[in-house]
């Protein structure tokens, strides 16, 4: 079966600065289960890109394999996409990014795709501070292969079939922090209010932006006893702060209260305004971020919001000192040294 979204367009849909409606940011019709958290994240991506006035073709969307990794077909239909192999999206994103530094790279993955089969590649993409947004749609299970526990399932969490997970969960945010990630955030697919500004901030970040989004699997892991169910997350969510994302060179119209708030100015001049900060947490302090994550975990809570942010890091292009021009745009005539040079090389080998 193939699914194509109906062509009907609502005549009064609002347009963004580029003259596009949200329709220009949508993809084909989703084939995921009704109510799947992944679709909400896809919708948040559409909304974030629409609001940020991103040219859709300037985004390259990539994924691995899984229900979550299918979603690039369902958002940003005018963007090129690459549904790679299971767990290997980071390497394809790395190569793509090396070829053209000017596109915006948006990778989506699942908890199986990232925390199990793809752990090696994930870890190294973080370590290289690859300039991309990496979203894990985390449902604590393998949706596409019918609900097996994943490595992010919490110890003691109960599957729909009733078995209890006996293993420690891998905390992807904690791991990313440990590896030196420069942007770490956590959110919940059911919290658009928080998710959209976080996606915006992640896409504006220069370097590796990691976004772990709890995304309930309604079919296999939304039962009582599961720690990745809608009910559990709603009851245990604990935010680092509420936030607004202010794009670069935009006049700040809201006046924010002093004291309890924090402003984070990003690489490109955009601003993250954080208010209602959780106590003892500072987004620029890795230690306090690690502590906040650990504490909420101990208390069985789900810490959401911006966990850590640092914009001073060099991305992989900075480290490799590559040309300011996208490598894929340099003409072959310039890349090929020509016959005279080759004669010189020959002479050295005679």
């Amino acid at each position, binding site marked *: *079966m*193939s*699914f*194509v979204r109906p062509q009907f367009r609502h005549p009064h849909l609002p347009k963004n600065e580029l003259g596009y409606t949200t329709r220009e940011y949508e993809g*084909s019709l989703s084939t995921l289960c009704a109510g799947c958290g992944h679709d909400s994240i896809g919708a948040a991506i559409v909304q974030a890109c629409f609001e940020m006035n991103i*040219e*859709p*073709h*300037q985004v*390259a969307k990539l994924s691995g394999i899984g229900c979550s990794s299918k979603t690039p*077909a369902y958002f940003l239909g*005018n*963007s*090129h*996409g*690459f*549904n*790679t*192999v299971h767990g*290997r999206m*980071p*390497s*394809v*994103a*790395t*190569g*793509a*990014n*090396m*070829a*053209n530094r*000017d*596109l915006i790279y948006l990778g989506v993955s699942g908890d199986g795709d990232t925390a199990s089969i793809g752990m*090696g*590649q994930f870890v*190294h993409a973080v370590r*290289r501070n690859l300039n991309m947004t990496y979203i894990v749609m985390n449902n604590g299970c393998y949706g596409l292969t019918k609900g097996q526990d994943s490595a992010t399932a919490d110890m003691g969490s109960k599957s729909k079939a009733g078995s209890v997970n006996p293993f420690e969960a891998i905390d992807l945010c904690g791991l990313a922090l440990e590896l030196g990630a420069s942007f770490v955030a956590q959110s919940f697919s059911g919290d658009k209010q928080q998710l959209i500004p976080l996606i915006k901030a992640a896409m504006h970040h220069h370097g590796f932006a990691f976004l772990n989004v709890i995304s309930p699997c309604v079919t296999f892991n939304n039962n009582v006893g599961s720690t990745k169910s809608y009910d559990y997350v709603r009851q245990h969510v604990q935010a680092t702060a509420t936030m607004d994302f202010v794009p670069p060179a935009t006049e700040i119209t809201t006046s924010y209260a002093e004291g309890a708030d924090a402003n984070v100015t990003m690489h490109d001049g955009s601003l993250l305004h954080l208010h209602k900060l959780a106590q003892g947490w500072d987004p620029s302090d890795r230690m306090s971020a690690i502590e906040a994550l650990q504490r909420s975990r101990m208390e069985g809570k789900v810490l959401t919001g911006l966990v850590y942010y640092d914009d001073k890091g060099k991305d*992989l*292009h900075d480290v*490799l*000192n*590559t*040309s*300011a*021009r996208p*490598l*894929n745009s*340099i003409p*072959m005539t*310039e*890349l*090929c*040294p*020509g*016959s005279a040079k*080759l004669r010189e*090389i*020959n002479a050295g*080998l*005679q």
Partner: protein
Amino acid sequence: MSACNDFVVRFANVNGTGSASANYLFAKSIFRMGIPVSPKNIFPSNIQGLPTWYEVRVSEKGYLGRREGVDLCVSVNPQSMKQDVQCVKPGGYFVYDNTKPLADELVRPDITYIGIPLMETCNREYTDARQRQLFKNVMYVGALSALLEIEFSVLEDLLREQFAGKEKLIAPNVKALQLGIDFIHQNVPYPLPFRVERRDLVGNSILTDGNSACGLGAVYGGATVVAWYPITPSTSVAEAFHSYADELRIDADGRSNYAIVQAEDELAAIGMVIGATWNGSRSFTATSGPGVSLMNEFLGLAYFAEIPVVLIDVQRTGPSTGMPTRTQQSDITLAAYASHGDTKHVLLFPSTPTECFDMTADSFDLAERLQTPIMIMSDLDLGMNDHMCEPFHWDDARTHDRGKIYTAEHLEKITRYGRYLDTDGDGIPYRTIPGAHPTKGSYVVRGTSRDEHAVYTEDSAAYKRNMDRLTKKWETAKTLVHAPQRYQEKYVSKLGVLFFGTSTQSAEEALDLLREKGHVLDALRLRSFPFHHAVSDFVASHETVFVIEQNRDGQMRGLLITELNVDPHRFISVLNYDGMPITADTIMQQILSHLPN
């Protein structure tokens, strides 16, 4: 055994003692005297301490394959001395360091011993410990130059070139040479019955290794993204690319027109290549058998999703870790059908560094033209040894063939773009590069089945149409890949010989040896897979075809049987799989065993 310009010298050293540059000096000096040489490293999988050998064949007739039997062995490694004494042919010579006396058990009555006090002399002449070690090596080169009549001025010139910019090092090196020469002149009858004599047989040939040539070919081929994971014997491909690019690919503002990523493993390396080429760059990876094994899943994706990939496989002795520093042609089956499902890949078989350069550069065109992986099947012998070969050539009028790409301009004129439409009837569709057009030409690349417009589908008919189009593309590939090398205008025999890659030099020599014995066989050198039509023609025109290759199972023979659908009895394998390069002698013996006397 009196022979001019026709002998084999073997050096036995300890790995990590700086012998490589002295041994190279020896080989290069003979090359500079206009005489064909072929040096081969036989080295352990170890960084320091284990035995290593360097074997130089000198051949007036220009035979560059390995030859069995050592005429002169220089052994400066006590650990391997027993073995080294045994390798010398009866009537041959054994050169050793007589600072310590030779053990009785090492004395053979049928060879001549030449003891040189290398350690004693160098300890006396030099104070620095490292220099004492290094100059022992240069001193034996000096001694050999006296024994074999290598021109001193040639050696001196080479030292000058080697130490250009570090002139202080020239004098002590020349002195070490002289110490060796003086010792021979005063103590040993010279020259030996076999020696070198200046010739004009190398023309404008160059002496270089296949890996450097691949690296350089990739620079010329326009590669900008390199992803790799270290593995012998392929490592020096990426390193060569790096050092050439560092000189030839720097922007006016000092920034690099290339990116090299040392990946976390081979899975990631090939993934990076796929990402880069999808995004419009030319990109390659270099690896060896274990890496290709890991890359299988991605190679299937690249085949099915039609992504250009260039992969240089420098083969070594398998299976598993096998003998990682020995040579073989044993990844043929693996590479041809890498990955699950119905996959087939284009393979190129270079036989010289010149061809490594050409085929690497060509492979970027082929990969983009065919939108599929191209694997260059080199091996340790070709990649890591110096070979005398034709100089590199580049035609400045040549344009890089980027294959079928729809740009924004093209897309403007199309109502509905279909990524997998066979618009031209050759099985090759048009691709688009991410970012090309705001509203046209985008699609999701996937390894799952899809229709002509890249829309996911599980419709059997659409799946089958796509697979059949890929078969059509495979047929098109046959017309684009490198044609085999023919050795005769007209077939003269019912017997044919097929070979490829580094079996070539020894196969050619074997054909000469057989001719001298009255057996004239037709020959063809394979240069690519899928097999060119000229290969099917050759096979059809001969009753029996000998297939020469360096693996146990006759992998190329298997490929020929399967792909050409020929009666297996018509192919006879001629094999060598002990990790050493195949010799002409073994080829001749194996073929003779099948011929009536």
